[in-house]
């Protein structure tokens, strides 16, 4: 199963401010009544977008100037809460190919890497700086260079962090672990045979 080697992600950005944005916010549970992930994209941030509309405002994801953005920026502890893979699936299907935040909740992070959607960490100050550039020039292109560990936008570079194992998985095209796991099946069976509860 040869997967794409993800070393760079380029796209326009959109900033959704806030800390602790949970997976219920990213995809409200009622949209998980489905047996496939198809069609989840349109429901990304559904309630937050709807609430903005009701309040006479426009959510960043609905602003025409950010339409087609491929990189999402947010605050700390992004993706906390439920383990639902529906959350990164919804973001991916909405069109995002990378997420930048101050920190990520663990399960969301792992689910995203498995989809080949890098989640990279930047400092709050740098995220603010990038958000300001995007705000003034929504067409500005962001380039995430995973090998170099930097984000480039408008002639500026910002450092980004990505845990080594995730970087390795993405840049070698092994972000979906299934192929590696299947290779170890003989070892799995040997290990299972040592555990009495597996035999019961």
């Amino acid at each position, binding site marked *: 199963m040869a997967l794409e080697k993800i070393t760079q992600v380029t796209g326009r950005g959109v900033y959704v*401010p*806030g*800390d*602790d944005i*949970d997976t*219920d*916010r990213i995809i*409200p*549970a*009622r949209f*998980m*009544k*489905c*047996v*496939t*992930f198809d069609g989840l994209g349109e429901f990304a941030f559904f*309630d937050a977008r*709807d*609430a903005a509309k009701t309040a006479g405002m426009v959510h960043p994801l609905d602003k025409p100037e950010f339409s087609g953005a491929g990189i999402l920026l947010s605050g*700390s*502890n992004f993706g*906390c*809460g*439920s*383990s*639902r*893979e*529906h959350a990164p699936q919804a973001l991916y299907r909405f069109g995002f190919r990378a997420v930048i935040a101050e*920190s990520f*909740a*663990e*399960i969301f992070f*792992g*689910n995203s890497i*498995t*989809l080949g959607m890098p989640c990279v960490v930047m400092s709050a100050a740098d995220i603010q700086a990038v958000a300001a550039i995007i705000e003034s020039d929504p067409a500005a292109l962001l380039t995430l260079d995973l090998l170099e560990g930097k984000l480039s936008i408008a002639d500026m570079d910002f450092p980004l962090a990505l*845990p*080594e*194992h*995730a970087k*390795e998985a993405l840049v*070698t095209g*092994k972000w*979906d*672990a*299934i192929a*590696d*796991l299947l290779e*170890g*099946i003989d*070892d*799995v069976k040997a*290990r*299972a045979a*040592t*555990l*009495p*509860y*597996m035999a*019961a």
Partner: protein
Amino acid sequence: MSQTLLDKVWDAHTVRTLPNGSTQLLIGTHLIHEVTSPQAFGMLRDLGLKVLYPSRTFATVDHIVPTDEREEPFKDSLADEMIRALRRNCEESGVKFFDLPSGQQGIVHIVGPEQGITQPGTTIACGDSHTSTHGAFGAIAFGIGTSQVRDVLATQTMAIRKPKVRRINVDGKLAPGVYSKDVILHIIRCLGVNGGLGYAYEYGGSTFDAFTQEERMTVCNMSIEGGARVGYVNPDETTFAYLNGRPYAPKGAAWDEAVVRWKNSASDPGANYDDVVGYDAAEIAPTVTWGINPGQAIFIDERVPRLEEVPEKDRATAEEALAHMHLKAGEPIKGTKVDVAFLGSCTNGRLSDLTEVARHIKGRKVRAGVKAIVVPGSQGVAALAESMGLAAIFRDAGFEWRGAGCSMCLGMNPDKLVGDQLCASSSNRNFKGRQGSPLGRTVLMSPLMVAAAAVTGEIADAREIFSVK
């Protein structure tokens, strides 16, 4: 060398190290439900793979099940499609399904322990973040995404990094009217909703030693709300007594051997921890949330914090929380009007939760205008509660007595908040929209505090309402 339980379980389940440095970890027990498994079975079909160890996967249906009209087909055709998909997938792959007619259906994190499937020294995974619940037995239990459900179905393993371990000691005796729910809300309040990132939480100390198995489950359940994917308590006689005689627990000589193994799986004295924190049980009071994440919590006698009292980095979220909750900074939370009282969920839907509330609610009445529902966590819990007369006590008090499921913990079944209703809830998450209405408001608390809210129609101190001494 002295090891933690996590070290020992990790070593015993490590298959190999993967090229990127992650561990290929054997998952001895896999629990599945209707929401996060259908896509995984679909991926298996696409890849031409089969379930490797069908006897090590167990299924139930919980998130989408109606708790009142449970006849099939369900009125909600999407929900009906989900239960049928699970039934078909289990049949085709030979996986045991605790289906609705079985009398054993319930919330996955209640069914596992109840059946004796959850055992010490094992690894458990489930496509649900509250899988940490099973850590109460000294299992290492992970919430996983759907692609990992696929991985576990196909290989009985997953790729994962070993977490660090933070030992959390709670010592002393809880005051009357203070429960394990208050302990975990307090821990999350102190360590933050992301304080557990990268850690497994090992809970211990004299308070945990004295806790029943079900009280330990309530704490471990909410580990993920503190950012810790895994939370556990070392197994002891309380654990073994709980498991003895349950359907999937070892029997006879196998039982004796298992107990020896289980004892050995506990953390060694002098084990090395990456971090250690401690709390005094006597200082914990009944705790309620005021905001939109479980860390935004206060003791019932405290006031909703003023923005200037909140650390600067948390201020924007606090401001958003106050606006969503319609609460005023600096005002008492006690006395806030309640529309709905929900008693149930994988956090607090067990028999001991219902017994404790029934003991106090007997002869009392739910306040007019409050919708109060009790949702047993499993059909097993429901049957016991009915035979013990608890259901009758709840009904007499004006609670609706429902069938087992996740119910109002999340908006995936007919039990939902409407508009901006405020719910006193024994569940685990107060995120915006969590209970099914985007404007709905959730206040997390212990089961007895939910009962106090039901009786008074407002957020109240259960110790006063029920004269708890």
